[in-house]
């Protein structure tokens, strides 16, 4: 049934989980959104300082499994400095990786998430932080739940 767990818990993921980047509440944030994964209780707040259309600063806070924490951490490193449109594109790429397992053309840390596709129940974990970030960009302070999005 399940593939080998080392496929899922790759070194990059374990590293981000142990030492999350950009973790905490951003004092200068002018956008914030909250994400919930109701099936397991994972939560993720994403804080942005938008400078015009560009993400000048970003952080996340919350609690959840290794996959969701690592994904949120990596997401912050990916989105910093990007425009809303660029963020949307990056999310699409990430979504493709975790749902199909196809690794991206360019070498990138997000490739570590390709193993998720073999564990469909964990796709929601991997996308929780991204959903919250996109919602924050839309200045939409409503909760992002992974259940109301089609992953």
């Amino acid at each position, binding site marked *: 049934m399940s593939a080998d767990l080392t496929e899922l818990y790759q070194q990059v993921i374990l590293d981000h989980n142990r030492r999350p980047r950009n973790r905490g509440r951003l004092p200068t944030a002018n956008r914030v959104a909250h994400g*919930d994964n*109701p*099936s*397991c209780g994972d939560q993720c707040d994403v804080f942005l300082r938008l400078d015009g259309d560009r993400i000048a600063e970003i952080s996340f806070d919350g609690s959840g499994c290794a996959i969701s924490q690592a994904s949120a951490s990596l997401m912050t490193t990916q989105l910093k400095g990007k425009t809303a449109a660029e963020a949307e594109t990056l999310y699409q790429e990430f979504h493709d990786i975790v749902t199909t397992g196809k690794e991206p053309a360019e070498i990138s840390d997000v490739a570590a998430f390709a193993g998720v596709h073999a564990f*469909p129940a964990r796709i929601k974990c991997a996308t929780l932080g991204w959903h919250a970030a996109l919602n924050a960009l839309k200045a939409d302070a409503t909760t992002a*739940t992974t*259940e*109301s999005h089609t992953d």
Partner: protein
Amino acid sequence: MPSWKDVRADFPILHQQVNGRPLVYLDNGATTQKPRAVIDALVRYYERDNSNVHRGLHTLSMRATDAYEGARARVAKFVNAADPAEIIFTRGTTESINLVARSYGGKLGRGDVILCTEMEHHSNLVPWQQAAKASGATLKFVPFIGANAEGGLDLEALDRLLTPQVKVFAFTHISNTLGTINPVAELCRRARAVGAVTVIDAAQSAGHAPLDVRLLGCDFLAFSGHKMCGPTGIGVLYGRFALLDQLSPDETGGGMVVSVDFEGAKWKPAPERFEAGTPNVAGAIGLGAACDYLDSLDRVAIRQHDDELARVAYEKLATLPGIRLIGPTGERGGLVSFAFEGVHAHDVVTFADEDGVALRGGHHCNQPLMRKLGLTSTTRASFYLYNTAEEIDLLVASLRRTLKFFIG
């Protein structure tokens, strides 16, 4: 075209004697029998995959969730819904209608009108009476035409009744007492023109004919698994997503909330919002298997088969002395209701049972309709894919014996 003789072999229950005679099961309007494929699906689930759904991350729970959500997708396909999220699993038609009547009914107020028809089953009538009482809305009824309701719904009266005040129009697809097939697509079209939300009671049609919610253009549609080869305790409410999304939940509890604190809760979107607590997982999977079974036979063929039996039955029954046949004289769904001068339905059913023939006698949860027809009960023979023309002959012979006993 399926071989209808082979179909009988799929149903274990049919191969038994009742009162020393081969069982002739003609009570399909009440509930249908189950093919081996549906029974096996239940057994397989309990022997291999049983687990709670949604909240689990272990293998069995993922399998159970996939099977349950797979059944939802299967049912969505069965009625051609645009999205599996439009399929809510309930206990049956009655609960489905209660759900709409309460959730959508909560949006109604004084001055609003709920429109039903005079041929509704209690399950598509009493919930609307309750909704009207709770909201202050007025409940009105589209009348039927003819002393035996042979003329169907009065569509001219409908035009007068369908004012912009009408917020809900709830009607049956096929009448469980009359056999009338209502022009549901047309009814939806007219309702839409005044902005009324439509609720179709498809209890008697879902297992008997192709059903396409997008072709019908309805907003809600309700049916029961047990009347279409599926298990007991499972049914469906289809709801157009844009509408469902606006509705408050009906029952509340585990599984339908995003977050809860001591003060209050936030709801998940449809369909979860409307499925509080552990659902009937095995029931949903069995219903999915029933959809597969019916489609493997082809629902157009099933409709022809059932309707043809009803036509033959109508003709043969018409030759019996003192019989009064109810409902349309031409096209009808797969059932015939009738009453005898001087012999009560209850006695007819008891005599038929002695001959192995299972019929239903009574008001069929249609008391107001009965009263308008000047009856308190009828006898009903209702057909399904495993019934045969020979069984109709057995029915007629049994009725002759009954008439002889009581009338001479």
